[in-house]
């Protein structure tokens, strides 16, 4: 599938979710195109979703002892802040809210196909908060993450931190007592 213009990761995922729903897929797994995600651990995401009846299973590099990628200090700080915000907003501890290695199962998949944040961190951090607050089942499992082998990252270390801070402020301002992104399940 080729989009005519750049919509960002969230927009690309939403197009993929719509394709999956229209073609009767029960679940989708997100995998980044840079080769960092462990494709051989997709089955672990599926198994966890089945075992715990979870609608969203996130592969966390911070729960894995096998991860060979050590995030920079600013990035680790940003992750801790994001985790704290999610904990305050949902009561759920998510260690790797920006992980793009995750499985989304129906009926959450249908909700994501209908409405999905397209801005920076909307597809990971904000979507996770929305899912939990809409009472979908969200869990984390360990997943190894490798250093990027080819190509260039989309943004540098400090740019990522600045974008994260901006997304954090926007997300906190958008938080409301009742979920507005998704229908309750």
């Amino acid at each position, binding site marked *: *599938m080729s989009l005519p213009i750049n919509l960002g990761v969230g927009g690309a995922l939403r197009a993929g979710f719509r394709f999956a729903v229209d073609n009767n*897929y029960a679940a989708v797994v997100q995998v980044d195109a*840079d080769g960092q995600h462990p494709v051989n651990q997709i089955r672990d995401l599926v198994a966890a979703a089945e075992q715990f009846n979870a*609608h969203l299973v996130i592969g966390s590099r911070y729960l894995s002892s096998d991860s060979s990628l050590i995030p920079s200090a600013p990035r680790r700080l940003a992750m801790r802040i994001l985790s704290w915000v999610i904990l305050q907003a949902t009561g759920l501890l998510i260690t790797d809210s920006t992980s793009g290695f995750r499985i989304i199962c129906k009926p959450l998949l249908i909700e994501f196909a209908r409405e999905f944040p397209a801005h920076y961190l909307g597809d990971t951090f904000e979507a996770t908060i929305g899912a939990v607050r809409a009472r979908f089942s969200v869990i984390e499992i360990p997943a190894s993450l490798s250093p990027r082998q080819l190509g260039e990252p989309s943004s540098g270390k400090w740019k990522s931190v600045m974008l994260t801070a901006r997304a954090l402020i926007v997300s906190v301002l958008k938080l409301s007592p009742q979920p507005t992104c998704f229908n309750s399940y």
Partner: protein
Amino acid sequence: MTSTISTKPLLVIVPAFNEQESISQVVSDIRAEQLDVLVVDDGSSDEMPFEQKQPAHRY
């Protein structure tokens, strides 16, 4: 519910923007797991492999 996911179709979605150097290997790895894969080319300006460049029609 999700209790029978393994018996239903599972789709792997790979959003890609200017990832011509790595996308072929990623897709190959996913297919080796015998899984369906959908690459969503997010308006890349580089030379993505032709087979990943099918138009999005209704999407």
